């Protein structure tokens, strides 16, 4: 019985650790997909000049859950179903792993896509890509540092609590 309780406490504690660490994994994945989307959009604007919604529809299934959700929210904005404020709020609500400043930057970028000619659009994309590449590197570093540490700590805390209780 004691062994079962011990294992259960360690498992619960590890699960909490994984949940806490997930924020870093989701953030890295989001930025990987965002960068991939920017690269695709850059190519599409440069060559095929496909419209934004077509670019999104053609590629949305290649992205992971979070960025797919983001693009779906963005599509609703493009379709006029939600206004800028509601789009902004929905992003804040669903992507708590992003900071307020990051959300502001991303939303502003997406709201401004398609408002200038191709040359300027490509310039803007280039600047944004460089910017998010930096954020992605930062997110990857933090993931490497914190995810193993949080999981190890959660296991240790679990063991500690289990010893104290038992």
């Amino acid at each position, binding site marked *: 019985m004691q062994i079962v309780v011990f294992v259960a406490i360690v498992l619960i504690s590890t699960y909490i650790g994984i949940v806490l660490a997930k924020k870093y994994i989701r953030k890295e994945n989001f930025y990987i997909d965002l960068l991939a989307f920017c690269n695709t959009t850059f190519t599409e604007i440069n060559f095929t000049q496909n419209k*934004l919604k077509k670019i999104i529809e053609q590629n949305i299934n290649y992205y992971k859950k979070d960025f797919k959700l983001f693009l779906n929210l963005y599509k609703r904005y493009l379709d006029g179903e939600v206004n800028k404020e509601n789009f902004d709020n929905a992003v804040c609500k669903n992507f708590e792993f992003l900071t307020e400043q990051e959300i502001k930057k991303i939303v502003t970028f997406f709201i401004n*896509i*398609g408002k*200038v*000619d*191709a040359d300027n*659009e490509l310039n803007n994309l280039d600047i944004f890509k460089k910017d998010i590449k930096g954020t992605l590197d930062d997110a990857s570093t933090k993931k490497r540092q914190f995810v193993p540490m949080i999981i190890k700590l959660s296991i240790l805390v679990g063991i500690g609590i289990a010893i104290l209780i038992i």
Partner: protein
Amino acid sequence: MLQDFLPKGIMDAVYKLPLNNLNEIRLRVGAKILVYVAGKYYYLSSSGLSSDEGQALKCDKILLDEIISRATEHSLYAVNYQLKQGFLTLNDGIRIGLSGEIVQENGRVKTIKNISSINIRVPHQIRNCSLDAFKYIVNDKFNNTLIISPPGCGKTTMIRDIIYQLYKHRYCYNVLICDERYELCGMSNGQPTMNLGEYYDVISGGNKLYTFENGVRSMRPDIIVTDEIANLEDIEALEYLSACGVGIIASAHSENIETLKQKPHFARLIEKKVFSRYIVLDNSKGPGTYKGIYDENLSFIYY
């Protein structure tokens, strides 16, 4: 469709208009919205047409930007080639004329920015509107025809109906439509959005000379239809076509035959008798009112 790019507030008012007679919606930043219905301007109010300035809906920069953003499907880069020419053509042949600041680079127009006013032109298909003229266009043979009128008098609508009448009267001419501004047929993803019959092919987006040269070679048309002849390049393209023995239906902006003769280069077309029918339209009893039909010697043959 208007509802694809007009915000709900404006669309609610537009739905109250007699849509069959709606020709234009004019929006200017800081000004009241005007609609051109059955040959007359009115204010657009929340209850539809209005002559009362106080009830008119107003346009601001945010509204105009939103309309442009939605009309370009948030992809201005994809339609910049149209913007550079001062217009946007949407599905169904709706054309938005734009005015703003021209951006130039190395002497060439790069784009248009700070758009301050737009004119949304709603296309119409008015069945049989060309019937009075049709018997002069096709009698024992096809006559090259130039339709002239000031802007907004129904030239394009008339051209559409002539194409349809050719089909309806079972003249099996292969008609090639040179739709430079996507306005004549409103092609959308390779599908026509207007019913112009079954005997026509469409080349959209190309300039006239390119379309004529390639179209004559590749599609072997009997008749080529084009809109808005304006400059020397267009006239040379028509001369090329005439020399190829292909029939022509075209349109040009001019008030009447006299003013047409005075327009640079048009005298050349008249002298060479490229056209054997001139149909003059005006707006005196609404768009598409016949002012006269003339033959190649500019003699009056129909009033």
